[in-house]
């Protein structure tokens, strides 16, 4: 019994940590650079599908299945999502701030269409199964398997966290902050804001892709339904709760929000009669939306975040 509980906890935490990776990616884009991405689900999906195509065994009914190692899949997923992010960023970052938001929204719609409709590559609505899982040799022992995967994911989060902290303190991170604080002054110093923003957006997208790949390998199958707009909303809620601009907050926010989400979903399926469950789920989403707005209104720096954020960027004016 208690062993079951531990392996369930390990499963839960591993899932939460995959969201933490997405959240870290979003934090580079939004928290540190102020770029609003409404298409998180798209970048996660690109990473997941790219990795799945690279690593699954050859399948007769679709293209690909290259049977490559999982690590190659992870890298490929990050690369593909990074490329997509670079493309969207290059197109919009020099324009109005909200054009990027609109474009990423478009990417989310289009990627969802692509994974549904390019059946020969993505398996259509059924998705892709038989994605190799790390430590598959341990699958006979759920506890060992769960703990090994948890350790792997925790390791990934730790490495990313350290790398991002390092990056934030590096000259590159300082330029990014300078641009955020005072774009004109940074420009005067010869720093090209568009280039730095684009780099940040691309890195963030690549991290989301990595998260998608890691999550796909952990679960073992992927389908278009995993990458609906609700995923984007969840990651946003995680970062906002954690406090944007703060990597530790991003991780804690992911675990917290995923916990609340999973618990309330479990409560819905346990206590709400089946015919009412769709409605209850809708109400759950209403809460997220209202919660997001309330936090923006009441706690613009996040619930547990401490660091300075973008939320009151007033333009510096001539005295």
């Amino acid at each position, binding site marked *: 019994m208690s062993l079951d509980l531990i392996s369930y906890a390990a499963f839960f935490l591993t899932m939460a940590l995959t969201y933490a990776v997405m959240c870290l990616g979003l934090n580079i884009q939004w928290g540190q650079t102020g770029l609003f991405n409404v298409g998180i689900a798209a970048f996660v999906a690109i990473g997941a599908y790219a990795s799945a195509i690279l690593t699954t065994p050859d399948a007769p009914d679709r293209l690909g299945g290259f049977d490559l190692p999982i690590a190659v899949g992870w890298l490929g997923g990050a690369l593909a999502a990074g490329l997509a992010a670079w493309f969207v960023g290059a197109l919009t970052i020099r324009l109005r701030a909200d054009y990027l938001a*609109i474009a990423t929204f478009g990417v989310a719609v289009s990627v969802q269409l692509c994974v549904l409709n390019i059946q020969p590559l993505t398996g259509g609505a059924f998705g892709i199964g038989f994605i190799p899982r790390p430590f598959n040799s341990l699958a006979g022992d759920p506890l060992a398997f769960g703990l090994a995967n948890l350790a792997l994911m925790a390791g990934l989060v730790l490495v990313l966290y350290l790398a991002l902290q390092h990056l934030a303190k590096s000259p590159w991170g300082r330029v990014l902050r300078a641009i955020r604080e005072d774009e004109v002054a940074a420009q005067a110093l010869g720093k090209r804001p568009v280039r730095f923003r684009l780099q940040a957006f691309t890195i963030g997208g690549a991290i989301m892709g990595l998260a998608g790949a890691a999550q796909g390998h952990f679960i073992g199958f992927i389908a278009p339904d995993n990458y609906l707009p609700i995923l984007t909303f969840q990651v946003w809620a995680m970062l906002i709760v954690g406090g944007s601009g703060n990597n530790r907050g991003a991780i804690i926010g992911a675990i917290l929000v995923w916990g609340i989400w999973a618990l309330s979903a479990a409560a819905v399926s346990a206590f709400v009669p089946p015919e009412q469950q769709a409605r209850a789920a*809708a*109400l*759950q989403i*209403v809460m997220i939306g209202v919660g997001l*707005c309330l936090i923006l209104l009441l706690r613009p720096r996040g619930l547990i975040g401490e660091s300075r954020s973008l939320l009151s960027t007033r333009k510096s004016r001539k005295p």
Partner: protein
Amino acid sequence: MNPQFIMDGLVAGAMIGLGAIGVTLTYSILRFANFAHGEFLSWGAYLALTVSGGLGFLATGLTRPIAPFSFGWSLPFALVIAIFLTGLLALALDAVLFARLRSRGSAVIILVMASFGASLALRSLLEFLFTSKPAYYTKALQIAVRLGGGVRATPDQLLSLGVTVVVVVVIHLLLTRTEIGRSMRAVSENPALAGIAGIDVRRVIRFVWFIGAGLACIAGTMTGLLVQIRPYLGHDLLLPLFSAAILGGIGSVPGAMIAGLIVGLSEAGAVQLVGAEWRSAVSFVILVLVLLLRPRGLFGRAA
């Protein structure tokens, strides 16, 4: 290529154009992309449904179809009331959310984000209230009439096109010929100067919310009449609305309408050429092309 796509495209484009006018007006006055605008279409459609149902319950005669259309008088009456209610919804949303953020001097992107949260809540609230099962204003079936040239249209479709033309002309005259229209253009160019010149900027903002939401209600109700009513009705139109608003040039009413028709016709053409499953990608392609080639749109001012 079957010429029918022109009719289908015009009808879809008219709905997109009406919605895009709302987006472009609120964008030019409030200066942020409102992701909740799509929900005004959905709420408008459901409000019209509810009011129309209520009217039909009070007086059954109102639901008897007015020949040659598929609906009875209850729907046009309901639409008028629903326009008003959707306008109030937008004003309420502004009062509790956006106005507070504005007065705090929040960055544009915070307003975008708040609108994103609001859209999520509004849409799911509809799903909670009405479930995701499609609803219809009427059960009556309509036979399409031949218009010549191999094009057919139902009376409802033709009526919707007619209503759209009237609404667009009225909005255009309102903007160019009236005092409130002049004030709207002034606020859109320079809100600070508008205040100094004696314009009550907050009143103009309220007016724009109301007009934008009213237009959204008309577009949503027409979409509901011609297709079906679903909680995702507006959300699925949001990308076409944004594409049309940007293609037309932010702030331009004729631009938004023309761009709406372009988007609608392109979608209908794409459905014939590559298949219906790719319809939603058309707006994205158009959006990318505009941002790449002419970011200020067809009739927009240079940034």
